[in-house]
């Protein structure tokens, strides 16, 4: 527990600093109202609006831990949303719609996983295929229209509340905790990390990398399906063109802010989810502070660059060189200098 806390401390500190900053500019930020059986306020809004990115970030964390990347998550959101809306429009009820969406997400994930693990295409490209063609598939399902539905039970997943908390918040919290427990209470997390560090070595150690990779991409598809369900339920309609657009970038950004290396290996689901909250706090903060939303992208880009430079392996090497230089200057030079090399 202490180790987890130490791991996510920088992210928590960043989030706290951001919240403080936003509160200074906009004092009502931390104000939470309770009226009509539901909590409301900017903080709740951040938690709720952040649900899709947080969910995607959970799946993306696992994929990135295997040294992969999943560019298709935004598109998978559109596909699963379309599948759910289509099922509802066909009159099969909300249960079938959820199953259909989750099934579609798993199928998309399995497709990506097979391309990466069985055929051996590098992940950026393998998931790029679904990213480009997936919106076409989603439009095929919705026939180019925005499919709307009136099922209150399904819409509840996007707009309802349990004990005052919006359902999307509960869904992403449950998913993140579930995945984190599954990864850390079993050896699964370790195996995933071993693939990311070196796949041949992990294969030699007896890890079934192929099956595990497919499973990881399927998990990412499943998370995208949950995000797609929330997005669709929220607006009571499936928009094949705009559902999940650009969200894959936000999800990757969340994982990077969470301090996970894009080169695979050690990962922390909690840190990624906090990363997603950081992104949404920034978004909300920029809007609340009265900046035009146009600044949003530039600020995000600056943030990514800053984090990248701080994370950079080269910088760490430079830094240790500098430190070694300082130490060498402090310590007296050894009396006998090594002789000239033969």
């Amino acid at each position: 527990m202490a180790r987890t806390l130490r791991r996510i401390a920088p992210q928590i500190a960043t989030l706290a600093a951001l919240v403080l900053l936003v509160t200074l500019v906009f004092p009502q930020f931390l104000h939470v109202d309770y009226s009509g059986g539901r909590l409301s306020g900017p903080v709740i809004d951040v938690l709720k609006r952040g649900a899709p990115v947080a969910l995607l970030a959970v799946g993306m964390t696992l994929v990135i831990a295997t040294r992969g990347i999943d560019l298709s998550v935004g598109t998978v959101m559109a596909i699963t949303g379309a599948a759910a809306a289509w099922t509802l429009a066909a009159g099969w009820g909300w249960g079938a719609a959820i199953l259909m969406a989750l099934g579609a997400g798993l199928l998309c994930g399995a497709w990506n996983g097979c391309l990466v693990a069985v055929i051996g295409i590098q992940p950026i490209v393998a998931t790029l295929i679904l990213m480009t063609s997936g919106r076409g598939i989603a439009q095929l399902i919705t026939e180019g229209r925005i499919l709307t539905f009136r099922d209150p039970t399904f819409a509840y997943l996007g707009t309802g509340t349990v004990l005052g908390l919006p359902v999307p918040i509960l869904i992403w919290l449950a998913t993140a905790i579930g995945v984190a427990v599954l990864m850390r209470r079993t050896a699964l997390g370790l195996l995933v990390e071993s693939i990311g560090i070196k796949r041949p070595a992990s294969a030699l150690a007896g890890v079934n990398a192929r099956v595990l990779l497919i499973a990881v991409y399927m998990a990412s598809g499943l998370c995208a399906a949950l995000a797609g369900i929330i997005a669709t339920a929220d607006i009571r309609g499936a928009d094949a063109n705009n559902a999940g657009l650009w969200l894959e970038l936000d999800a990757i950004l969340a994982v990077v802010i969470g301090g996970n290396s894009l080169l695979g290996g050690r990962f922390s689901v909690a840190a990624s989810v906090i990363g997603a909250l950081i992104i949404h706090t920034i978004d909300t903060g920029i809007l609340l502070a009265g900046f035009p939303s146009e600044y949003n992208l530039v600020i995000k880009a600056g943030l990514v660059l800053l984090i990248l430079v701080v994370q950079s392996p080269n910088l760490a090497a430079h830094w240790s060189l500098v430190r070694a230089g300082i130490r060498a200057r402090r310590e007296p030079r050894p009396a006998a200098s090594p002789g000239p090399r033969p």
Partner: protein
Amino acid sequence: MSVNPRLYPLLATIGIFCVAYAICWMQFPAMLSTRVVGNLLTDNAYLGIVAVGMTIVILSGGIDLSVGSVIAFSGVFIAVLLRDTALHPLVVFALLLGVTTAFGAAMGWIIHAFGVPAFIVTLAGMFLARGAAYMLTIDSVPIAHPFFEALQSAYWLMPGKGRLTLIAVVMLLAVAAGAVLAHRTRFGAGVFALGGGVQTARLMGVRVGATTVGIYAVSGFTAGLSGIVFSIYTGSGYPLATVGTELTAIAAVVIGGTILTGGAGYVAGTLFGVLIMGLIQTYIVFDGSLSSWWTKIVIGLLLLLFILLQKGLLRLTAARA
């Protein structure tokens, strides 16, 4: 006669283009007119230009996700400058190309100096360029300048009344220049060497840093040029334009037979990759009953097909070695 296996993807691309065109022609005889060819070149001019830069980036084993945003930024930059200042469009073009080239060079420098994956640096560049476009304006700004109208209406009448427009010529010139740069210069040799492996390239004496900066500068330049062409084509600047063009460009490069891990490919193949994608769209327009979303699905399938072809070839050459 044995053909170099490296030529297979290029030959496959050209073959698919010819077969696809023949199928289109059999269904719609009107497809085989210079008018259709002229439109095919004009409509895809901006994509072709940006794909040339992308080819060079991918040949070096990198990727540039920022180009779509840079095209949008270019359009907005031109439109706003022409609206608010009295500068001549040519001066604006020169300024713009300077800005985008410097932007690309800066990304290349970050990639090299900090050892960060190109993918994520250019992702940040994508946000930055799009954000910069938003900061200039959030509206679609029309361009009304006599010089611009002259550029728009400049064309050469081909036999058969097809119009070879100025921007199509610019695209063909860009492809030719890109081919010379990649296949006939010292810089190009460095690009291929980098694609083969950074370590080996360094041992061969390639100046890795300068070449990396140069590669992304070229990509920035072509993205800027593509932005100019796009602004001539649409006659306006809009910050939300060309979302996702980077992916279309990457797809065109891959369909054009360049291997995504870098080190093998041809700039000329990219032209055919672009034309195949344009052809799919033209076919859908001609057919009239197919929906435009089929374009995306067919492009995705083609992309998969070519990647599988490349995988097979790599395995073939590995087995032979």
